[in-house]
Each structure stands twice: as structure tokens, then as C-alpha cells.
């Protein structure tokens, strides 16, 4: 995807946009394969260092990267 608005630096943004777009597509197709009437509403990826939250839509994608509480 092409980033429209970001708070991170350019290279990171572009990387996240490209990778997460594909992942969201894959996740959505998985959900719909299992049940065609279902759809992906939210995607959360937790890793050791951050949590990445993706809210997909027909055309846009909102990505939030958060550090854990502590």
C-alpha cells in the first residue's frame, strides 16, 4: 500500500505499509475462505517488543504500533 499519513520515518513507514498490506489481504482471504459470509475487522499482531494493530477497510488501512504497558 501507499502511505498517506504517518508519524514514523519514511523508510519504516514504507516497509510496514508494504508488508502489512499483504498480510491483511492474506488474513482476509483466510477468514473468507472458512466462512464466505465472514469478514476481517481487526488484526492484532503481538511480538516481543511491540503490538501492531491493523484495521482494514475496502480501500484504506490504519496501522498502529504500540509498545507494551511497562
Amino acid at each position: 500500500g501507499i502511505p498517506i499519513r504517518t508519524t514514523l520515518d519514511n523508510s519504516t513507514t514504507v516497509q510496514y505499509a508494504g508488508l502489512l498490506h499483504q498480510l491483511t489481504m492474506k488474513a482476509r482471504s483466510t477468514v473468507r475462505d472458512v466462512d464466505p459470509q465472514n469478514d476481517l475487522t481487526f488484526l492484532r499482531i503481538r511480538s516481543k517488543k511491540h503490538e501492531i494493530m491493523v484495521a482494514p477497510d475496502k480501500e484504506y488501512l490504519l496501522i498502529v504500533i504500540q509498545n507494551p504497558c511497562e
Partner: protein
Amino acid sequence: HSEFVYQAILLSFIGHPEIFPLVFTTKTQEIFNCRVDEDVTEENCFKLIKKEDIIQDLKTRATVSDFHPIKKVVLEYPGEELLVVFDAKFQYGQNFYFVASEEAKENLLEEKGEKGEENREETLEVHPYKPPVHKPWVSLGSEKEVEEESVKDTVTKIKYMISRVRRKFGAPVTFTDKNASHVKDSYVECTSYQDKTFSIKMLEKDVGIQMVPKVREASTQTKWTYPKNAATQYFPRQLSNEEKGESLSSEKLKEFLTSVHLRMEIALQQNEIMNAFFDDWKALAEDESSSGGKPDVYLKACQSFTDLRYLKDRTMSCICWHPTIYGIIAVSARERLSHEEQVNLSDKSLLQQSVILFWSFFDPIHPQLMLECPGDIYCFQFSPSDPNIIAGGCINGQVVLWDISQHEEKLQNAKPVADEIEITAVNMVNASILNILHTEPPLVRYCAVSSIQYSHNKPVTDIHWLPDYFEDNQTGATFENRAEICVQLVTCSPDCSVLFWDIPATKLPEQPSFEKVREKEICYMPLDVPDTSKHLDLCWKPLIKINLCESDTNTDYGPVRISLRELHYHYKTSGKVQSLNTLEVPTKESPYTDMSTSSGKNLKVLENISTDFFVGTEDGEIVYSDWKTEIGSDSAKPVSQEHTQKYTIHTETVNTLQRSPFFKDVVLSIGGRNFAIWKEGVTNGPILQSSCSAGRYTAGQWSLTRPGVFFIGRDDGNIDIWDLLKKTHEPSHFQSISESMITFISPWIASSKQHFLAVSDDLGVLRVLEICQTLSHPSRNEHANVLDYFEREVKYLKYREQEFQ
């Protein structure tokens, strides 16, 4: 009559050759008495007529006689009586027939007789049995056939008689095998041969043929080069600014954001509420390891160092671990003085040379290095930026500097004693000599001593290096320190003053001292001493002097210990030190040469460095003050300020005043029979104060790894381990370390597994103990818990103050 003949012939052909049908006239009948229905009836149809009669009749009547046709037969008839049968039924064609043969006659008669007998059953007439009469056999030609068929011996049979002796019968028989082919002619074989008569040559044969294509397998391997991407270079597509602006303001984006923002908020809130990264499993393990099983010995004795020559009758005043080299610990010793002697120090003359000894873990017997001191050293510290610079405070109030950069390598390569012995084991003769040579540790002379005039009047009891990110100048303002080297010292002494010192020394890296001879310096320094602070020698003046006295009440404080807020610094690793020491540096001026006492020209003034400090005094008071001078003060010498607080908690001199390594505003003070924990900013009093204990507390330190643990040494040689999270009214554990009074404690982290505690006592013995795991590893959330505890105490204090006001 010819009819009769014919009929007779016919009858003979039919099968009854002896039956001749006759016609009897009545005359004949009368003659022979065979009248129909009178003599001969149907039932009684037989009539025997004599042959003679017939012949007579014949003669008399010749051709008229009825017997004429059968005249011949009659004549030939052997018997005497002839049978004539009345044929009522005309069976044979006529009314009477003549039976020609005796046999038939008898048969018929018998028949008739039987019938007659049957008819006359009642009558007992028995026919007499007539035995069959032999008749001569009449050959009819069958004997030839019989003859042919019968078997007759053509040859007379030969008779053989074979006999054998009787005893040979029934004897046991032995059979043997014999190959038939060995004996000639023992067998006859009939070999097969090809009989030509039976071989037929086939000239034509019908055969079916199937055509199959010839198949052959073959394979080859070819090198198929197919293009594969080795590397791709691309750049991401991006929208231009206008496009971005356009899409940002589009309606679709707004709708999207409104629809999505709620979900995102929920997720963020969830994260806020709960920490998603919390590893329960790991936390469980940590709990178990800390709570399971108390170790028997909290402080395990690891090593102990003592030296008989230099440390005889001496007590240790200060212990310092070498910041970078593992296993090197430095100890300063001083005379054991009673209290009065300590007060009247000026009278005391020092007989024995005092030294600072460097010990290595690998060699507990021989000290590695010795630093020569002009007098007894009460305290010393390694410089944090360069561990080769050591500053110490002397008994006569001077501040001494050493530089051990020449011996740094030796310290780093301190080998275990075993290796040395192995090397020298070859030569036993020289071993003793070598050992003797090894026993003398190199003596390093101090390279700078402050001027006696401007130093303290009383022993310097505490010395600290100031951290490297700020420095003061003479006016007392703090400035940024660009060089990141610690260049300033603060000392305090019971003569009621706190002095700040500067080190504007020319430290030239790694250049042997003899090269410096060409410098135009007048003072002569011995060759083995690096001329680091050459020009400071004996003319080193302090930068700032602070007199601790209350301006209104005119009471002085004799500070024994000082603790500055910004005293936290980390020791730089030797890597950085090495980089400082490379020869590339001299291309630009060494940083030390830039410094002068008034070097604060273009440096930034740091406002947010706190200049407050705690001071522990001789009389057991804790004073909290700050050294920043106010601008526009008239007096030439900067004086202490108005906002000082004083607390009298301890009964005797404060011997320890230390900030917690975890909380910058928490201070531990130990003196006399109790200790107290203070928090900066809390003016009511200490947040924790211990009760008076039986013995005196003589030394103490916070633990470096656990926020709520500190060690306190007593005068009976025990160490109390206090854990604020377990018990606050008594130590959680105590351990006896030595017999005499503990004079100094110093914890150290050598590695993640090895935590040491160096304890020195009054007898001059340095003991290094290993801290067990439970004491060295903080439990989960210990930091937070201790912080919590402190805050609770603060609140309690406030509450109490309010209550009692």
C-alpha cells in the same frame, strides 16, 4: 389228394413237420371207430390206430382210403400205433390230423392225458411213470461248431518239477544292490531311434506374427540455465504531496476513519488495561526460585587477603573495587587510633609508611600493586572516566592523586598463582629467587598532592569524583563538561568545609615519562612517576570552598560524609579508556590541556543539575543543603546558604551516608547505634529509622542489585542483612564474618552470576564474600514494591505530622 400233399408240405414248412391233416370220411370213421361225436369228441380227440389196420385198409381200399396220401409216412412210422387227432376246430385245416412222430404223439397224448387228468381230478387214475427212453442222438450239424470252439491241446504239455533242499527254505535272505548297467547284458533296452517312416517334413507352416515397435530408453542431462533474480532494486511508490492532500481530504477517508476508529480505541484500551506481554510462566518460575529454600549461608566466604608486612596493626579505612578489571580490589590502611588520638592528630608522627594495596583474586598472598601515600589514607576513589587515576584523602587534610596507567597491563594480566608456580617448577633452584622477586609489589608514588595550605586542616574523610557531565567553576555555577572526563573532586573534612577540586592536569596518553624531559618544567619528578599532574604538585588549590556553618546560629558542622545528588555515574569500560589512550589523540590537544581553572567560557550553563547534598557530621547530625551560590553575593568567599536542614538522629559520628543505587532521592545514613533512611524532599524526618541496637553499627552499604536490601557491619564482626520488604524492625539475616569490628563494606557485581561483598575489619584482613542468589537477584516487582513502601512511609510521616500539629 394233391391238396393234402400241398397242405402237408405247407405244414411242414410252417413248423410242424409231423402233423398231417386228414379228412376222414364216415366210412373211414366207422372202420376205425373214430366217429365224430361218438368216439372222438372235442375233448377226447386222440385216437390211437394200429399201424396194421392202416396198412390193411390201404390194401383194401387203395386209393380210396384216407390214408393214401400219408402212406409213405405210415409205412415209415416206427411205432405200432399211430395217433390221429380229431381237429374240431380245423386247426390244421381238416377235421383230423395225423401225428407222424412218436414224440409228438406222446407229447400230445401226455398233454391230453394231463388235461384228462385235470379233467378227472376226482378220479384217482394215476398214470404210471414212464422213465425217458434213450433214443439215438440225431446229428443236425451242430457238432462241427462245437468242435471248432472247443480248446484242444495241440502240444503236449511239458511237465517240470523243481525241487529244492528243504533246509534252504525260509532262510534269511540278504539282498544286495547291483547296478544293472555293470553287468553285461543284464538288461535290454530299447533305444529310441528316429524312424524315417514316421517323419513328416513340414513344408508349410502357419505362424502368427505381431509387429512391435522397437523401444529404447535413453537419457541425457543438459545444463538448463534459467534466469533467476539475483537481486532486485526497487523503490517504493509514493504519492506526491498533492495526491496525499487530496486523499486525506476525501470523503471516503473520513468515513473510513470514523468506522475504524472505534475498533482501534477498544484495542488500545485493552492494552492499557492489561499488559499483553506479561509472561506468566516466567514470572512463576522467578517466584519459585526466590521463595524456595533459604540458603544456609547468605554470604559465602570466597577469599581473604591480608598482608603481614604492611598491614600489621593497621585497620582498613576504605575498600574500592577496580571498576574495570575483574578481581582487583584496592584497600587503604591506616593506624588504629583511639578516639583521643584521632582528635589530636597533629601530634601524631607517623612511623610506618602507609600504603594502598591492590589485591587480585588470583593471588591472595602477594599484593599486586602498592601506592605510596604521604600519610594515612582515610578514603580514596577510582576516577570513573579513567580507572588509572586514583584520588585519595589523607590524614593531614591533603588530597593525593595517583596514576597507575603504567601498571594497568600488569593488573589486567594478573595470572593465577598456580600458573606461575607451574612455570617456575622447572627450575627449583631459581624458584625461590623468583618468588622473592615476586613478593615485592611495585610501588607507585603519588603524582600530585594538594597544597597543605589550602587543603583541609583535619583528615579528609570523604572524597568523591564529580560526574562527568557537569563541572563547576569558581563562581559555583555548573557548566556542561564536554570532554566527558571526570575532572572534579569534592572532599569534606571535619574542619567544617567542603572543597571542590579541579584537575587541570596535563595527562599525556601512554607516553613514557622520559620523553617529557624536553618540557620546560622546573620541578623534578622521579622517572617512574608519570608527570600527569606535575605542575599541580604541592600547588594544587581547591576550586570552591564551602563552609558549613549556620549563618545565624554560628554553629559549625564537621562533615564526615558527603553525598551529592548527582553522584551517579557509570564506569566507562576499558575500551573507551583504550581509545583515549591511543596515539592518535595527540594530533589534537589532549583534553586536559585545554582545561584551566576558568574554562567555562563557551560552555552551556546547566540549570537542571541539582546542587543539593547531604552531609553527615561528626556529631551525628544530618545536614541537607546546597552549594549553589547566589548571584550577587557580596562576600568574597561563597558561603553556605540559608536553606539547610539539620536532623539529629544518630548518637555518634555518621560513618555512612549513601544514596540508594536505585532511587536517587533515598539516602541511607548509619551512625552509632542506629541507622536511618531519608528521602530528599521529605523534611519531616527520616522515612525509616531503626531502633537502637545492642552493638554499634560501624559500616554499611546498599546492595547493588536489590533495591530493598542493604548490609550493615557491626563492631562485633557481624554483618546484618536488612531486607526492607521482609522486615523493617530487625535484620532479616545476620552473619558473623570476623572477630573484630567491621570497618568497611563494599559490594560489587563482577558478573551476572558473581556478586561479591568485600568486608574489611579492624585487624587488617580483607574478606571477599560471595553473595548468594537470593540476595543478589531481585524478585519480581521488587523495585516497584520498595518504591511503594517508601511512598507509604512518606505518607505516614505526613499524616503523623498533621496529627500531632
